[in-house]
């Protein structure tokens, strides 16, 4: 069973949902398609979508909502 890592393309603050009151884009265990948005990164007051980049059966997040992240840091793992 192979695992794929989704890494942050830029540094900033990671958000699990599109707005504070909205449900998370994905929760642990969800299946993902490559084009699915899995979170947002806020960098210098602008927001950028992060897509899964890979199809998989189950996603597992390594970061909580509103956590600071570095570029290249692993956001989540996806089971192929």
């Amino acid at each position, binding site marked *: 069973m192979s695992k794929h890592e989704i890494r942050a393309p*830029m*540094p*900033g*603050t990671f958000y699990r949902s599109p707005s504070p009151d909205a449900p998370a884009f994905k929760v642990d265990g969800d299946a993902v398609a490559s084009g699915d948005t899995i979170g947002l990164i*806020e*960098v*210098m*007051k*602008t927001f950028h979508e992060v897509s899964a980049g890979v199809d998989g059966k189950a996603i597992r997040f390594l970061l909580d909502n*509103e956590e*600071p992240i570095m570029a290249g840091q692993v956001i989540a793992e996806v089971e192929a």
Partner: protein
Amino acid sequence: MTIRSLLVANRGEIAVRIVKAAKALGIRTVQVHSAADADMLAVRLADEAVDIGPPAAKKSYLNIEAVIAAARAAGVDAVHPGYGFLSENADFADAVEAAGLIFIGPKGDAIRLLGDKVAAREVAARAGVPTVPGSAGRVSSIDEARDGVAQAGFPIMIKAAAGGGGRGIRIAADMADLDRHFPQASSEALAAFGDGGLYLEKVIGKARHVEVQILGDGKNFIHCFERECSLQRRRQKVWEEAPSFLLPADVREKLCASAVALAREVKYSGAGTVEYLYDEDSREFYFIEVNTRIQVEHPVTEMVTGIDLVQEMIRVAGGAPLSVRQEDVALRGHAIECRINAEDPARGFMPAPGTVRRLVVPEGEGIRFDTMLYEGYTIPPFYDSLLGKLVVWAETRDACLDRLRSALRGLVIDGVATTVPLHLALAADDSVRRGDFHTRFLEGWLDEVFARQAQPKAEVA
């Protein structure tokens, strides 16, 4: 009471500016910082530094309790809020006073009054300052909105009473648009600002953004002439000048007098800015809003008047009367400020945090660079993208543009993409040299002129 120590409740280049102004007055400085800002320049320059919380602004720079606790622990006399963050938060100003400290700015009540855009329009009207045609006050229903339109006509802006800084604005071109946008605008305003109140203002087509610097000590009120800030992208200023060189002398006199009348109406204390739209064709100006803080672009005013606005606001907060009388304020020469942001103009202004590998700052007569940068500094991604402000002064505007071009060529910030290439292109542009622009000029120019220039070269900042 004279201020002997102050807490800087901000970050970035303005924190550096405040620390330097305080030091020039012999005042002890205490700099707050988030966990992400421990190595910022203002921390290095200040006498002391206090960690006030995690990187997220709402847990640090926007956390009133944390800032007040830092001020108490450091035993300072006063708090300078800078711009942005808590600078126009009336509750913060009140909390500073309640802690027995001096807030360097106007009283909480004045911030509250002028921060409510509808109330501010009413204050302006009382002071005889022309306002943009629109609703008489808050509009609470679509029927009231329709009445407002009957007075002002389309296109019309639906604005949030608690908004500001270009946020919370929608434009309706006709009645169907108004019907559609009005309820959405109200719920958005409620979500964004905690106040669903709206008002209407007519869209002034090709207007300039002109603003007047005011100073008050609660008894005396003066202006330090105006700034021209029409070059904006997404309602954010990019390039500012002083004075607004095409403004006819009689209009300048009326404009500046109206700002002083407004300051007097609210017995203003501290530094502030009255913003206007100016319609060149009709030679009419219209009040937009008052900013009750020091502005990003204050240095251009300092360069043409010789007044240190940050020092003046600290002295006034300490109880001193204004150190200058109106008749002593004179315009000399021309100044231009370029906002140097960590954004890549060749890639849609994508933010570009990173590490500054090499920094070369141009020097010489009439050149000033207000910045947070030093070599080896890593720009954090959590805050806005302003890195510094290149401010250039010369005897005439033409000479100022020439000096600006050479200063921009001499400014080297290796390691991150910046807006320097944008400013080089603007400084070389014929429309800019003629002063032939308005508030919506820059976005069109970026698409039509700059996109063509930027492509073949693939600028490396």
